[in-house]
């Protein structure tokens, strides 16, 4: 096992968990109690890094109940959402399936794109999607410059539903990775114009900090490239971004299946945004429901605080009392 001796201000040793994240083992502080007040033998306080750094459980009083943890809303720019899952509306072959999938996902916020009216077909997505049922989050998908993204943002706002915007400026056609410099430039302009900007960005801490400073209401680092379904390729940086930012961190793009969504939420982030994982599933409605469970499970596992991972076995049944 890779073990670092990185002694930060919290003097916690980091342990790399195979296939999982990094947990930090703090020096023994207080015995953890489990269940019916029984003092566990485990005296090491362990939490996944995240949620704004270290919080001594002894100082959190009273501890949140299970119900509180489950019902804790996602709050973006003062608006509460019960679901931590945001879904896109692209790539569905059938609009009826799309609406059914969105409902099955439990998402309250859905992303939409701005495009020219096709004068032969005419119908936009609002013919099937009721803006009273879902909070519309217009995106600037497909834009390659700050100027273009700003133009699309203006058109989205003129549609008259809200001032929320999922800002994305793409920097490369092959990987669809963001042009973060142009994103920051556009974010500054749009924030000044009163938009509630949720900015799609790389899993880069410095750019995430700059976007927060620019006034974005949420920062949305990618899990992996758009439409790739590769899951979280860099959980460490995702955790670091969450640990350092005050605004909500929503992981956007790259989630492929339910376990990816669960692992994403276990990093402590506030939410996850996905589209292709649902639209490209054989059964989008069933996958949407799976994602709903996965996001809730991942969030609750994060709040529960995982056990420390070790590369040695530790019996979970008593070693005393065995027959001779």
């Amino acid at each position, binding site marked *: 096992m890779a073990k670092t001796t990185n002694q930060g201000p919290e003097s916690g040793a980091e342990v790399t968990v195979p296939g999982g994240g990094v947990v930090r083992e703090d020096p023994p502080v207080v015995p953890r109690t489990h269940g019916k007040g029984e003092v566990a033998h485990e005296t090491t306080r362990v939490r996944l890094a995240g949620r704004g750094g270290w919080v001594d459980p002894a100082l959190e009083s009273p501890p949140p109940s299970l119900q509180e943890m489950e019902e804790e809303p996602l709050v973006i720019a003062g608006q509460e959402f019960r679901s931590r899952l945001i879904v896109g509306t692209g790539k569905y072959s059938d609009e009826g399936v799309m609406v059914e999938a969105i409902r099955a996902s439990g998402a309250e916020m859905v992303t*939409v794109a*701005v495009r020219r009216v096709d004068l032969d077909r005419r119908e936009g997505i*609002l013919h099937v999607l009721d803006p009273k049922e879902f909070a519309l989050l217009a995106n600037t998908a497909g834009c390659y410059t700050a100027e273009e993204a700003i133009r699309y943002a203006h*058109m989205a706002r003129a549609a008259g539903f809200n001032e929320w915007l999922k800002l994305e400026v793409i920097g490369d056609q092959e990987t669809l990775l963001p042009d973060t410099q142009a994103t920051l430039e556009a974010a500054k302009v749009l924030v000044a114009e009163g938009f509630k900007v949720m900015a799609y960005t790389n899993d880069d801490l410095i750019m995430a900090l700059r976007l927060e400073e620019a006034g974005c209401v949420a920062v949305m680092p990618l899990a992996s490239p758009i439409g790739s379904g590769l899951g979280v390729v860099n959980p460490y940086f995702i955790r670091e971004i969450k640990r350092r930012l005050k605004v909500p961190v929503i992981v956007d793009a790259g989630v492929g299946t339910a376990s990816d969504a669960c692992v994403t939420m276990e990093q402590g982030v506030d939410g996850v945004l996905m589209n292709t994982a649902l639209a490209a599933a054989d059964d989008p409605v069933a996958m949407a429901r799976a994602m709903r469970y996965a996001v809730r499970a991942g969030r609750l596992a994060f709040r529960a605080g995982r056990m420390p991972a070790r590369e040695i076995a530790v019996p979970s049944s008593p070693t005393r009392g065995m027959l001779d």
Partner: protein
Amino acid sequence: MQLNGKEREVAAGLTVRGLLEGLGLEPALVVVERNREILSRARYDEVTVQEGDRLELVHFVGGGA
């Protein structure tokens, strides 16, 4: 005039609302950009399409990222 990138002939004095209605579009669901500037819906009745205008009619479609 140019409409969504294509040349189009329209009758002189046609208002934006008239144009949208002629195309079978619901004004409440469409955003009009005229020569790179958003045209507010309140002005659809007064603004007429001029020769050389470049109009973009956009709306929301399905999209994620």
